[in-house]
């Protein structure tokens, strides 16, 4: 038997270490150390109910275990084979105790469709993909379905674009299929530029064939024989694996002419991005593929009408494509049974920031942020307090405590002032200053703005300047009004998606953390203690013993005082380097 003790950060904080010790001691005391072993594991992702102990092989799942429960677990469960009822997990919905953790709802939180093969197959071996039903979907559409029937399946499945906008994929394909032209193109947008999002990279690195197969299916539907993958040059491994995959597919005759003897021709080439976030926008992406500056153009005309080289072009992102083959094989009804009314299927998120289980997760639409952050993500690092989660990258917004129980889907996130974006989720804790976070994103947008339209080129710069002033304590209440007006005008007038969404981090922090802004401009204080200009180092005369360590280490001689008497910091000289704070052994330096 094995006793698995969760060694995740959350459980450790709640004494899982000593539980393990106790269990080991108890087993030894009963001379059972050969019968059962205690193993510390990684996070179970269920920190809310931690510490967790799981008993194998019977999959018993004990929650909120305390060190003093160890004797009972050993005596009852290990020796007598009776489960400790009071520690069993209770299903909140059914109000029933769960004996076998395989039946726990928790384990259904994640569901892998787009990531179905990631971590399972060798991405550099097409045989492993084929063994897992690879290219069956392509074969099915080519031999059993006509393009419109295939489009109907995608439409019926409710699949929406995973790149940010959430446009229904089937409708997009249908439009492109109806535009007549001698040549059309299928483009895969793999220019994943949101900082903190890496799901497309993971799919291309872990399961490149799924994208190739889906592009071919799309080509068949819209009547295109050429596919292009626009991929970030910053992803060398993904490029390499995709190249290998394309070559293997060509060798097998799954790309090229007369695929599977059906007369359908399709081949794929790669185009590299070169470090421009705006190229995630489809018109900019197309210009970039044409060898031009990646500047967006006004839509309409949409790429489905006039895209790459002026021809009808269908652009989808990596994750969208990765969903296509399972939909074809398992049917539209299967797919649409997952998710919420208007957002079907699953979504891959990249969990990052101040969260324990940084990682890539795939969850059904409709899951709440709370489940994602506290259950799958294992809660906040170092036991800090959750403050906000940023979704949608630089185009998204910061969601707070009050949004934790909203079911995540395209429309709910927009209603909450953020957006799905490509699926980055950056978790922030109480130490993060929301004005600084907004400034961070604006810094990004200013750098990544293409410069074509004035609201984005100049407006975002001005937003950044305003935020910078606020973090330096130079802002005024009027500045907050200006921030808001400017943000609304930029959203209203900017040319492309980048500009139209760039003020979202400002607006959402203004909405959700207005007090924090006010603290910066009125009280000239940064509640999170992040804004250097607003910090003040002082010495607590009660705690100071006059050891002079601070004065000796101050690089600008801002500290004075007699030996063995309380010292003082001259705020006019202090450069807030924090050297005194680190040197003081008596915790006498305060940051206010």
């Amino acid at each position, binding site marked *: 038997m094995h006793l698995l003790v969760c060694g995740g950060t959350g459980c450790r904080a709640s004494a899982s270490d000593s539980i393990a010790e106790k269990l080991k001691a108890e087993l030894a005391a009963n001379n059972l150390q050969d019968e059962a072993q205690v193993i510390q*594991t990684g996070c179970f992702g269920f920190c809310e109910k931690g510490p967790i102990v799981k008993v194998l092989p019977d999959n018993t799942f004990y929650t909120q275990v305390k060190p003093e429960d160890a004797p009972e677990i050993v005596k009852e469960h290990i020796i007598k084979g009776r489960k400790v009822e009071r520690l069993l997990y209770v299903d909140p919905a059914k109000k029933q105790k769960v004996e076998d953790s395989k039946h726990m709802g928790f384990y259904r939180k994640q*569901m892998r469709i787009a*990531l179905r093969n990631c971590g399972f197959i060798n991405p550099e071996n097409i045989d492993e993909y084929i*063994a897992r039903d690879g290219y069956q979907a392509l074969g099915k559409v080519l031999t059993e379905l006509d393009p419109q029937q295939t489009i109907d399946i995608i439409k019926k499945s409710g699949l929406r674009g995973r790149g940010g906008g959430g446009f229904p994929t089937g409708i997009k394909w249908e439009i492109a299929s109806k535009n007549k032209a001698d040549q059309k193109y299928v483009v895969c947008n793999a220019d994943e530029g949101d900082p903190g999002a890496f799901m497309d990279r993971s799919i291309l690195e872990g399961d490149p064939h799924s994208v190739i197969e889906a592009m071919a299916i799309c080509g068949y539907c819209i009547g295109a024989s050429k596919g292009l993958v626009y991929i970030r040059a910053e992803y060398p491994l993904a490029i390499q694996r995709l190249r290998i995959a394309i070559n293997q597919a060509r060798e097998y005759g*799954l790309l090229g002419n007369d695929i599977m003897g059906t007369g359908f021709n399709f081949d794929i080439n790669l185009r590299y991005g070169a470090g421009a976030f705006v190229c995630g926008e489809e018109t900019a992406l197309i210009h970039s593929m044409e060898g031009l500056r990646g500047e967006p153009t006004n839509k309409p005309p949409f790429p489905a009408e006039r895209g790459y080289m002026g021809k009808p072009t269908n652009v989808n992102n990596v994750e969208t494509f990765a969903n296509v083959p399972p939909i074809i094989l398992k049917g539209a009804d299967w797919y649409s049974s997952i998710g919420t009314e208007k957002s079907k299927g699953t979504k891959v998120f990249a969990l990052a920031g101040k969260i324990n289980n940084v990682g890539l997760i795939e969850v059904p639409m409709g899951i709440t942020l709370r489940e994602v952050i506290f259950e799958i993500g294992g809660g906040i690092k170092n036991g800090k307090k959750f403050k906000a989660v940023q979704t949608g990258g630089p185009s998204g917004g910061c969601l707070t405590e009050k949004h934790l129980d909203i079911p995540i889907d395209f429309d709910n996130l927009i209603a909450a002032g953020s957006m799905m974006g490509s699926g980055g989720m950056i978790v922030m804790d109480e130490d993060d200053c929301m004005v600084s976070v907004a400034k961070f994103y604006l810094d990004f947008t200013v750098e990544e703005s293409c410069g074509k339209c004035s609201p984005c080129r100049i407006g975002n710069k001005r937003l950044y300047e305003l935020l910078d002033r606020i973090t330096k304590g130079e802002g005024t209440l009027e500045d907050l009004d200006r921030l808001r007006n400017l943000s609304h005008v930029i959203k209203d007038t900017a040319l492309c998606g980048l500009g139209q969404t760039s003020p979202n981090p400002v607006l959402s922090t203004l909405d959700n953390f207005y007090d924090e802004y006010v603290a910066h401009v009125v009280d000239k204080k940064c509640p999170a203690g992040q804004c250097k200009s607003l910090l003040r180092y002082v010495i607590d005369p009660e705690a100071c013993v006059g050891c002079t360590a601070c004065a000796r280490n101050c690089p600008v001689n801002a500290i004075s005082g007699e030996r063995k008497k309380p010292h003082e910091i001259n705020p006019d000289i202090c450069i807030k380097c924090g050297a005194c704070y680190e040197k003081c052994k008596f915790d006498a330096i305060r940051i206010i």
Partner: protein
Amino acid sequence: MIKVKSLADLKKMRESLQAKVDLREKGEAAENLVQIKVAMATCGIASGAKVVMDYLLEELEKRGINAVVTQTGCMGYCYAEPTIEVKLPDADAIVFGYVDKKKADEIIEKYIKNGELVDGIIPVNYESIDDK
């Protein structure tokens, strides 16, 4: 060169490939064939997955263990990279996190040789597409 000339071709191919995998899993050498997958996406490689993979290949051979080591994509546990999945015959696959050479050695010696679990297991917490 193999060419897939029709859907029937492809289906046949899938079956034989699956059979091959089955053979690998349940065939003659089933009692002692160990399957190991190393997550080799960017994060994994950056945290040393390649070193671990090389080590495993070398050591398993040296220690006379009949094993197949393959690379695979991201398993999603970025916080615990490098991660590897070990599947012993007649057992569920288990994912280990934070694997370095030392850990790999421990996994070989304790888990692979004796079926003893070791610290650092990552509980798999998702449903695969095949479950539904």
